[in-house]
Structure formats: structure tokens, C-alpha cells
């Protein structure tokens, strides 16, 4: 649990009347002069679900990169539970309670599926803590649950390297959930999943909301619809629209840059 340092609490009132957990303030990210994100601000209340959509290259993944410290902004700052995390090392940010699923699945290939989850579920992450501590009963149980939930139970002792693409996708989602973080960042969790799996994932995510705060990126409008959450649409590194799916679907500019012709966005 992060300690909230009083003097760093932001003065701005939270949008939904709840406490703001993630507060992205005016960040700009530049790659060799190319501005992938420009003066972007965004607030996510504690316990809420937020969907991030936007054209390919809009800067969605880069935004997540910035939050978890993989990419450092040239301007602006990121507050998490009131604390400025903009310059903290990645593992410290993760330790504060932010966990991310990457767009390309990232699992620990040399370990079994179960070990992947056990490591993710560990509370104590220091060198000496890992030497001393075997997994707790609670961690074991949690891992069992997740194995069942994600359908990976049959492959619990298989090395993660041997999973098919979609299975790795599931494993990584399970790892993020096992880590039990305050804030979950999911980058295209349903890519490569069947319709039914997509629905399951949506259900899983909805079950997390409240206790956790979740931010999801996806291009699958079915999925987005199932999530029933406020949407932020990024375009060219900036917030372009905020609102619910129906409003966005009626917006001609949104159709133009992102959704395409109305008839066919059913399938994608």
C-alpha cells in the first residue's frame, strides 16, 4: 500500500466525486523529436473502470508506458494516489500497486505457468524476502482460483514458453490479476481471443472493478460495449473525446478517424 503524503495531494476535485487514484497531468512524450503524446491530462477515480481507445499510433500504449515508468515524459507529471511517480524506478512504481499487461504478451518463459502466477502474487519482492519466503497459503489459493478461471489449470505445470499465443495472453492477464494491484493497466487483453473468451474477459474485468481500478485499451468494440465504462478516445497524442460508446458512435469525427463506417463496426 502506498503511503499518501499529505502535501502531495492534488487540490483538483475528482470528476466523479470519488478520490482520484491516477492523475496524469499535462504530460508530453517525445521520441527523437516526434511527439507521441502532447500535453495530455487524464484523471481516473479510485475503484473505477476506464476504457482507452483511439487509432493505431494514437499514443495509448505510450501513455501506459509513461505511467509505469518505462518511458519518461519530457514534460508534465504522473500522480498515483497523490504521490508523484514520474521519476521513480519501474519496480518501485510496480511496488506501489500498478501492474500492466503488455500488448505483446510478456510471460516468464523459463518458469511453469504456476510459477509465473506465484511470482506475480508475491507480496514481498526484495532479494532477501524471496530467499526466506515460500508462497503463503493465501497466495497458493489465489493462484489455484486464477488457473481455474482462465482455463489454464490443465497447463499449470507446463513451461510458459510452450503456450500458444492466446494462452500466453490469458496467462498474462492472470498474472496481472494475481499481483492484486491497486491499478491494473490492460493493453489489448482480448487480441486474438474468440468472441466467447472476450466476453469472459469482460466479465472478469468487471468483477475486479470497485476493489481495483482498471484501465483497458482495446480495439474490439464488442468488448468495449460489454465493459460498460466511460471511454477516453486518444488521437495524435491528445485526449480527443470522452464519453460513453453510444455518444462516440454517433460522432462523425470519431467515425472518420477511428470507427469507420457505422454498418460494419459490428464485427471489429
Amino acid at each position, binding site marked *: 500500500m502506498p503511503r499518501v503524503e499529505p502535501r502531495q495531494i492534488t487540490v483538483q476535485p475528482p470528476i466523479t466525486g470519488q478520490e482520484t487514484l491516477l492523475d496524469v497531468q499535462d504530460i508530453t512524450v517525445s*521520441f527523437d523529436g516526434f511527439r507521441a503524446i502532447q500535453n495530455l491530462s487524464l484523471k481516473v477515480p479510485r475503484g473505477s473502470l476506464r476504457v482507452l*481507445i*483511439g*487509432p*493505431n*499510433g*494514437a499514443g495509448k*500504449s505510450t501513455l501506459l508506458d509513461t505511467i509505469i515508468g518505462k518511458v519518461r515524459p519530457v514534460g508534465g507529471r504522473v500522480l498515483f494516489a497523490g504521490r508523484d511517480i514520474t521519476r521513480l524506478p519501474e519496480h518501485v512504481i510496480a511496488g506501489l500497486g500498478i501492474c500492466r499487461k503488455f*500488448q*505483446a504478451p510478456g510471460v516468464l518463459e523459463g518458469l511453469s505457468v504456476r510459477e509465473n502466477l506465484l511470482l506475480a502474487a508475491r507480496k514481498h519482492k526484495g532479494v532477501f524476502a524471496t530467499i526466506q519466503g515460500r508462497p503463503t497459503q493465501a497466495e497458493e489459493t489465489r493462484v489455484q482460483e486464477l488457473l481455474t478461471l482462465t*482455463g489454464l489449470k490443465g497447463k499449470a505445470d507446463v513451461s510458459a514458453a*510452450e*503456450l*500458444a*499465443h*492466446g*494462452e500466453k*495472453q*490469458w496467462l498474462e492477464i492472470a498474472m496481472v490479476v494475481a499481483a492484486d494491484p491497486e491499478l491494473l493497466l490492460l493493453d*489489448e487483453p482480448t*487480441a*486474438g*481471443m*474468440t*468472441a*466467447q*473468451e472476450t466476453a*469472459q474477459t469482460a466479465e472478469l474485468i468487471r468483477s475486479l472493478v470497485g476493489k481495483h481500478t482498471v484501465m483497458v485499451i482495446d*480495439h474490439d*468494440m464488442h468488448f468495449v460495449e460489454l465493459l460498460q465504462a466511460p471511454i477516453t478516445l486518444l488521437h495524435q497524442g491528445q485526449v480527443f473525446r470522452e464519453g460513453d460508446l453510444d455518444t462516440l458512435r454517433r460522432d462523425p469525427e470519431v*467515425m*472518420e*478517424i*477511428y*470507427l*469507420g*463506417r457505422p454498418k*460494419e*463496426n*459490428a*464485427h*471489429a
Partner: protein
Amino acid sequence: MLKVENVSAAYGQSPVLFGVNLDVADAEAVTLIGRNGVGKTTLMRTIMGLHPVSAGGVRLNGEQVEQEPAFVRARGGLAFVPQGRGLFPHLSVHENLLMGLPALSTRETAKKEIPELVYDLFPICRDMAGRKAGNLSGGQQQQVAIGRALVTQPKYLLLDEPTEGIQPSIVQEIEAALTRIRRELRVAVLLVEQYLDFAWAFAERYYVLQRGVIVESGHTARTPQADVQRYMSV
């Protein structure tokens, strides 16, 4: 004609494909569907020559090619857009496109340059020509990858989940582009897809793969999506 005859394949000692039969006629659009992990990607890689067959054969234009390395098959008219796109991350977008040309080195008649159609279909290939491919966003990479496959002027195009991670409007564009490719270039397409909507809209025939075995095949026009839906559920 691209013909897969009784192909089996394995990772080490663990078999993944068991005697798969499949064919794609010239200029035909065929889709291969199936749940996660049933072996779709493995089959595509085996056809391309990136994974060895443990039994069975692959016939390209009537010739047995299952023992030929991938580059020979590429020169014979096979192109592959893998899951995960497979761009060369340190090469620029333009250089990635140029890398389609070696496939033409043995085809005397072919013009060894990037067809204008590629820029037409995927303007990003021109707009971002100088950028390092590895720095593009996922959707951008997918477009370049398909564009690059077209540079090889293929007869058969193997696409492994091309819409994965692509924004809706571009999915439409890709769909339109693929349709144009088929119509204008008469390229046959073998498409692996999870999205039945897309697969059914695009393809004429389908195969369902389950645990390494083709369990059903037919014409999309004659089979309602709902009939195959059960193969896709957990």
C-alpha cells in the same frame, strides 16, 4: 493450387498437427478457424517452411515443396504475414518494403520494385517511409507487414490473424484492401481468424481446426456462422 496433404508437425516430441489436409485454389479466399492453441499458427508456419513437417507434404503449383527452405517457397509465390507482424525492427519502413524484393529474384518477368498499389492500399507506407519499423504502433506495423507481403507479388498469401490489435476503421480498410488484392491481383488468401464475422465476410470456404485435426470444412455461404460457433467456445 496450394495443397496441404496429410501434414503432421510437432514441437520436439509433442505432436501438434495430425494429418491435416487442406487446399487453396488460385485466387480463392479460404479461412482457417479454431480456438487458441489448436495449431493454426503452426500450420501456417509449416506451409511457409518455417517449421518442419514430421509427415505429409505441401504442394505449391503442383510441386512438392515440403523439403524446400522457406526462401524457395517465397520465390515460388508464397507470402506470409505472421501473428505479431514480423517486421524488421531496425530497418525503416521503406527498407522493410524493399525486403520483399528478394522473393522476385528468380522471376524474370517481374518488375523488381514496390508496386504503387501498396502505397494506395496503405498510405502509411509512404507517410512513415523513413521511420524505424520497430517504433511504429501495432496497427501501423500490421499494415506495413501486409504491404511488404504484397511486394513479393505472391500467388498465395498466408495471413495469421491480421486484424488483431487493429483499429476498427483500418480493419475495414484491410478487409477492403484484401478484397481488392484478390480482385485486382488474383492472389489467393489463406486467412487465420478468430472473428467469424470478418472471416465469413471475406472467405469463400472455411476449415475448422481442433486439436491439430481438421474437423470440418465447407463453404461460408452455405454454412451459418452459428454452426461453427461451437468449435470456438471453451
